[in-house]
């Protein structure tokens, strides 16, 4: 089974010789821009929450308990519009459904990690944690639990929560993040990390198909559903159109 998995989850382009220290150094380098992005949007969330009438405890509770930016921003607007809680909770479940794909993609890597630790790891699984840790595992050619925690806690959990407090308290005195190009960081980081995970034609086809499907669904129906549907359908097209390749 191990051999099967290793063939099925090939490392990122010739990087298997990396030692853990070097791989973690690259991980931390990859994290740098994402920390800035998480911090900037955390500040914006803190400010938005303050203006919507949240107390600081409520803003912090959102960032520590929900810990999912898009649904937190949506909730700010919905709370301000006096939307009933069940509708907000339902929308939250819908917005965060993509995490199911992240969890499923990481599951084969983390299968030997104790169940309790996996349960804790799931709590901090975000777009950023997924992207960084998967790229890190592929560079190493194996799982690195410490690396996962570094990616999840260091890139997002701490910056997002600290920035929520900062934004709540002093966000009004900080200029719009767009002025500094900070709005580019998140999509660019996700795109860059996606490119780093491409190891063959199958991935290229899956990525291209996912982009096309996602954009069509976003315009025709819903941008959040588009991410999930693109992420589900793209790999199917990759598998259907490209026969199996030998890794490396």
């Amino acid at each position: 089974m191990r051999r099967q998995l290793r063939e099925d989850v090939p490392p990122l382009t010739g990087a298997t010789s990396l030692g853990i220290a070097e791989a973690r150094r690259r991980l931390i380098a990859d994290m740098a821009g994402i920390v800035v992005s998480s911090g900037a949007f955390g500040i914006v969330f803190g400010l938005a929450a303050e203006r919507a009438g949240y107390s600081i405890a409520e803003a912090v509770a959102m960032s520590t308990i929900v810990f999912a930016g898009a649904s937190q921003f949506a909730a700010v607007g919905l709370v301000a519009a006096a939307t009933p809680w069940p509708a907000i909770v339902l929308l939250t479940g819908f917005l965060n459904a993509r995490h199911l794909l992240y969890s499923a993609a990481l599951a084969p890597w983390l299968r030997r990690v104790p169940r309790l630790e996996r349960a804790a790891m799931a709590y901090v699984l975000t777009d950023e944690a997924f992207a960084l840790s998967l790229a890190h595992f592929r560079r190493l050619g194996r799982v690195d639990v410490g690396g996962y925690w570094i990616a999840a806690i260091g890139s997002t959990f701490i910056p997002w929560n600290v920035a929520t407090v900062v934004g709540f308290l002093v966000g009004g005195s900080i200029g719009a993040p767009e002025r500094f190009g900070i709005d580019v960081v998140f999509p660019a980081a996700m795109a860059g990390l996606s490119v780093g995970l491409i190891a063959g034609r199958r991935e290229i086809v899956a990525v291209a198909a996912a982009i096309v499907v996602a954009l069509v669904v976003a315009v025709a129906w819903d941008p959040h559903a588009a991410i999930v549907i693109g992420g589900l359908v793209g790999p199917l097209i990759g598998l259907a159109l490209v026969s199996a390749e030998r890794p490396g």
Partner: protein
Amino acid sequence: MNGGLIGLAILMGAVTYPWRALPLLAPGVERLPPLVLAYLRLVGPAVLAALAAVNTVVVTDASGRASLHFGIVLPAVVLCVAIVAWRRNLFLGLLAGVGLAALSRAVGLA
């Protein structure tokens, strides 16, 4: 508001956590057929690309209607991707992308 939204945060967290945890905690991951594992290997780059694409060119108006918008974010992301593909350095790519967007806005091009 006076703490009432903490209850909402708990409910929102309660519907989010299962998405994050269920596949990680489900038994039998080791017994998945190779085709399913091959599929899961493709999910990572595909869902990140979809996320990036939607966040790059899709804008939603006040009524919630989405449309495509090709602003400065698109060339900035493309520049980042090109540098990552060339140099395998995400931070360098992000610096270039952010720099392009910030500079374009500063000089009024975007």
